[in-house]
């Protein structure tokens, strides 16, 4: 019970801070729009090309955008030595990790949900009829990305070049996840049978479980000096 309250307290604190400052969300939404707009502009008016590349472009935008939010996940705690304060509580390290993960996951998912209408308009895609299926792909992909990102954010927090190191480590590590998300989204956007997306969904689920368990086991070692 106390464990769950601690997880929720950390997530609540991060979300309240984000809501009041809106620093990350504003930057992330703007960045997602910019990436989607620039790719659309670069591809010109070729609708066949746009439709073929749209799911990949969508996930590229999401991945780049998520890094902005994840960079603040643990690194944001450095202000006023709050990270030390957090580590000084007699709280399970797993609760701290899960709390940070919940906060990051919620912010990234919110930005993705805001980006869907922008994507729909810019790429002339009818995503609304496919939204539930799209969410079935988006949620596990975002969870995996947020899990790996939160862990790496903790791992790089003590480094001088932490902001550069996070994407440098995160993108190679999450290639299988991004690939699965792209393929799964492709199936959904083409209106094909959802069964075709199942292998990708399973891959994402495996990635999520692997990273969640791995993160819970290693977070304490990584976050402490």
């Amino acid at each position: 019970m106390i464990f769950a309250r601690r997880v929720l307290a950390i997530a609540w604190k991060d979300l309240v801070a984000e809501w009041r400052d809106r620093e990350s969300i504003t930057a992330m939404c703007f960045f997602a729009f910019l990436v989607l707009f620039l790719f659309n502009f670069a591809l010109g008016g070729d609708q066949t090309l746009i439709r073929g590349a749209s799911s990949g472009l969508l996930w590229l935008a999401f991945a780049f955008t998520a890094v902005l939010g994840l960079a603040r996940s643990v690194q944001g705690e450095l202000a006023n030595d709050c990270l030390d304060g957090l580590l000084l509580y007699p709280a399970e390290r797993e609760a701290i990790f899960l709390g940070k993960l919940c906060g990051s996951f919620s912010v990234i998912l919110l930005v993705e949900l805001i980006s869907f209408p922008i994507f729909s308009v810019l790429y002339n895609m009818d995503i609304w009829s496919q939204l539930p299926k799209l969410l079935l792909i988006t949620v596990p992909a975002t969870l995996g990305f947020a899990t790996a990102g939160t862990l790496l954010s903790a791992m790089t927090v003590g480094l001088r070049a932490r902001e550069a190191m996070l994407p440098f480590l995160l993108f190679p590590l999450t290639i299988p996840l991004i690939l699965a998300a792209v393929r799964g989204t492709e199936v959904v956007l083409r209106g094909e049978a959802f069964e075709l997306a199942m292998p990708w969904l399973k891959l994402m689920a495996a990635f999520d479980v692997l990273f969640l368990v791995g993160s819970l086991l290693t977070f304490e070692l990584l976050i402490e000096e």
Partner: protein
Amino acid sequence: MDVPYSGCRMARVDGLTGPFGCTPAVETRALVKWYGAHPALRGVDLCVGRGEILALFGPNGAGKSTLLRILAGLVRPTAGSVQVTGLEVGKNGDGVRRVIGVLAHGHQLYDTLTGRENLLFAATMLGLDRAAERVAEVLTKVGLETAAEGRVKTFSSGMKRRLALAKLMLREPKVMLLDEPFTNLDLQAAKLLEEFLVTSKAAGVTTLLATHDLTLGFTVADRMAVLQQGRVVFDAGRDEVSRESLRSLFSLHGELWGGE
């Protein structure tokens, strides 16, 4: 100059027993810490008895903060052993975190949350019962009951220190590690902190207080130790040393105190 020194001095607190005459609440043995090629601590032996207040003096870079961070379990020592209330810090971090309270140089408060929200968050993380009541109590004690609804980023430095003190009070620790606790405190708040130290001492709380402020350190501490270049160069009880002899030691060791 008549100033005593011992590498590992034991506290002489009445009623306490142990191998060296006291029951140590904090004990370090041959503590060494290197940051890369730079030695921060070079073999520190300290033993602080239960209910004792030890003032740690020393110039910037002497190793005071490093020592406190090691005791808090935030930094791992390169060599040596550290025990807090009999618990090995490296092996029983969670147990140590339950008994310590830290007032650090950085105030460890979230700017975007209000003062009260910061304390409620702390209370939840500490797993306290009656969190709202306890938070209201400590806010009243530090005189922030009305200001507590404002966000911390609008607080003055002194108010932030008071709020950090309120957060420390929430914990009811057995061992307090205070790093420059009087910095930015106005007279009233400094008095409040002094009173808190006295009350805590009466309750058997052990305090390690790193400070540059010789006068304040001398006023509240039972014992004084001076760290220089990662070594304890002076360690004596308040009754054994005058402020003047301590000041002489500081001058002897050079650059220590600037304006003191």
